[in-house]
């Protein structure tokens, strides 16, 4: 019996989620991709792709229902959806917003959008998937961020304070779920990536010009002297879904090139 895995935010090419989908397919999983970016579905013919707004509990519950109708079970949930400004259909194609949104100059609507995309989404998905995961055990992997550890420096282009708060919430969510689901053989962990060369990063860099030359200010705080790749981050997430990490739960795995040592 193939394991059934759901990956939210797995449809955009050049994203961590997309690479996780490829990794889980290579492991022999049946993969369900839940995303708003339906344009990406044509590149995922071997997956069940479901248009899902993860910030909407009804949309999430419908996605879980369709998954179980098709595959009969859920073994793995990877919540990759997220972003500094929240997720709306327009964000998927529009250029990223400029400037820095802090907590003190944040409109309530922005706060809600960003928390919804980054924290509520992981809660809705794990709550809806939990009854199915509990039947045979499995794994949940959430994606936090180095921003949860160190915050976002005021002025950082293309980023936001609420994002740092939401990602810290993801770490707390991970720990609480680990306690609640452990006895059912469901492990819950998260990764906290630093700067990863995803399509989104390239988009932000195109605004600021920081991608010119390897000695850019972006690399100054990274002892490994490079940004992370989507492939290695995804490989780590896939490893957290598998038996090699069978005794890890509630953990946050920092993957940041030694840029922040928790």
């Amino acid at each position, binding site marked *: 019996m193939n394991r059934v895995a759901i990956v939210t935010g797995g449809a955009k090419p050049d994203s961590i989620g997309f690479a996780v989908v490829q990794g889980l397919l290579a492991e022999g999983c049946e993969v369900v991709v839940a995303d708003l970016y339906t344009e990406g579905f044509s590149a995922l013919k071997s997956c069940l792709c479901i248009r899902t707004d993860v910030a909407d509990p009804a949309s999430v519950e419908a996605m879980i229902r369709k998954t179980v109708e098709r595959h009969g079970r859920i073994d793995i949930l990877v919540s990759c959806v997220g972003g500094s400004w929240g997720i709306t259909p327009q964000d998927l194609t529009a250029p990223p917003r400029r400037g820095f949104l802090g907590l003190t100059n944040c409109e309530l609507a922005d706060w809600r959008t960003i928390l919804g995309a980054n924290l509520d989404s992981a809660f809705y998905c794990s709550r809806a998937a939990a009854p199915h995961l509990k039947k045979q055990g499995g794994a949940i992997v959430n994606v936090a961020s180095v921003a949860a550890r160190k915050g976002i420096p005021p002025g950082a282009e293309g980023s936001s304070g609420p994002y740092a708060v939401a990602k810290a919430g993801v770490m707390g969510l991970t720990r609480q779920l680990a306690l609640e689901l452990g006895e059912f053989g469901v492990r819950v962990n998260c990764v906290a990536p630093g700067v990863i060369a995803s399509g989104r990063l390239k988009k932000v860099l195109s605004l600021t010009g920081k991608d010119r030359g390897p000695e850019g200010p972006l690399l100054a705080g990274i002892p490994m002297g490079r940004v992370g790749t989507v492939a290695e981050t995804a*490989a780590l997430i896939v*490893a957290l879904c598998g*038996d*090699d990490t069978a*005794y*890890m739960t509630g953990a946050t795995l920092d993957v940041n*090139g*030694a840029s922040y040592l928790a």
Partner: protein
Amino acid sequence: MSRSGLTGKTALVTGAASGIGQAIARRLAAEGVKVFATDIHPQAGLIVADLTSSEEVERLAGQVSGIEFLVNVAGGPVAPSRENSLPRLPTEPVGLEEIDDTQWARVLAANLTTAFLVCREFAPRMKARRFGRIVNFSSIAARRGSDRVGAHYAAAKGGIIGLTKTLALELGPYGITANAIAPGFISTPRIEQAGWGQRSPEAHRRFIESLPLKRLGKPDDIAGVVAMLCSDAGGYVSGATLDVNGGLYFGP
């Protein structure tokens, strides 16, 4: 699960005669890694070395070559010796006043100095090839303190975390990662020999029941995490401490 980035590499595993070290050596070998294994205790196929001595570490370095993965497992709550590589663990909690100067020095040497000497010896070779993965061993005793094995062991394993973070900063520019694993309670020959759980089976049962995953760990649980860190999946993980404890402690 087989991992990419392991086959054809070369590893040195210390403390490899039994338990966690042995499981790691076997796992890496099963992945197609050429494994040099060392222990203080003579055993077939192992290089014998007392890693608290820089002369012996230097001699060890002369007997191996091409090390890309360095896995420093050697250590334990009671310092091993050539005569007794698997010393009995105390059955009662070790209090501060019971730790004499010699015990303090020996436990620090066995758990912290060993890792320092081995890293110092092998880091230049890794820098020269601009690739390396260092995995050091901390402990749950360092992460949340220990009411069992004593302040000397907790302090030494805390030192491992500081050592590892500094290695990550220093060696990162050379393509070398350095991480620590902090195991929780793992069923090893040493733990079983100490009879933890036998003196008070009821308390032991309650302890296991208190773990989110409802079981003690196995040496293979740790070996899997080492394989992950050495593989391509670990390429951008550096300076981290990985808690592998069944949910007993979640990290700072």
